[in-house]
């Protein structure tokens, strides 16, 4: 998804998902959760959020 500018990753994620149950990639690179608070989103950034689903 295209990231909403002006927020940190922490601000975007923290209210919606539990840490340890999602992983975030910013512009294709894994963004460890300890870096969420200090990482500001810019217009055009590609933010991806992943979690586990059922699978065989």
């Amino acid at each position: 998804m295209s990231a909403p500018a002006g927020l940190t990753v922490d601000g975007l994620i923290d209210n919606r998902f539990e840490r340890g149950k999602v992983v975030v990639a910013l512009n294709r690179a894994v963004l460890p959760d300890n870096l969420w608070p200090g990482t500001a989103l810019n217009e055009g950034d590609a933010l991806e959020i992943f979690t586990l689903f059922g699978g065989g």
Partner: protein
Amino acid sequence: MQDQFKIAGLRIKSRFLLGTGKFPSNEVMRAAIEASRAHIVTAALRRIDLDSEEENILDHIPEGLIMMTNTSGARDAGEAVRIARLSRAMGAGNWIKIEVITDNKHLLPDNAETIKASAILAAEGFIVMPYFNPDLADARRLRDAGAASLMPLGAPIGTNKGLCTKELIKILVAELDLPVIVDAGIGRPSQAAEAMELGAAAVLVNTAVATAKDPAGMAAAFALAVEAGRRAYLAGPGAVSETARASSPLTGFLG
């Protein structure tokens, strides 16, 4: 001597591995996991939206199990490697079932890309469990790439057709000193028992359990079958004969 099942030096408590896909609900899935007594369960990594309100599967996995992420959805080695790294970054551990599929009709694995991904991820410290077409030369390449086990398909994913690759799996068991875990296509407990009787170290089942009328009941049945098959393998089945051989004396009763 105790019959221990180890992967990468770790003792695994059950030879029955269970997938978590296709269950009608997370509650049914949890009941099936508990009934299966599985020690390793598999899951898949997927992208979600910010407004996703789905329950997280991790809330329904019993504690103490090994969660092995698969790389389903990967179409080449690079995508499989990315999924594995994302999974580890999330805290899902080092266990990774490598699944690279380029054929959307038959869902057969791409062995060449699987071997590439295995080498990269094994070098990064992952416990690599590759799902592949049971080819002996490729099995040796996977071993050399650092695979901790081999996961040959029994039949195409989700078909419940059983051990269509039986003869090839027998060759892998005979020729390679790695645990062979039959994955995909096993549709009945009897087929799981047959795989174990052949000398497979374990089986991984998903569809046959998740789509059963009573998934927990089917999971329990598979657990018993896997145990029975293993015991039969260790007991050494008798030879097969082309001609009849009497089990009772044929003389000294009449005449």
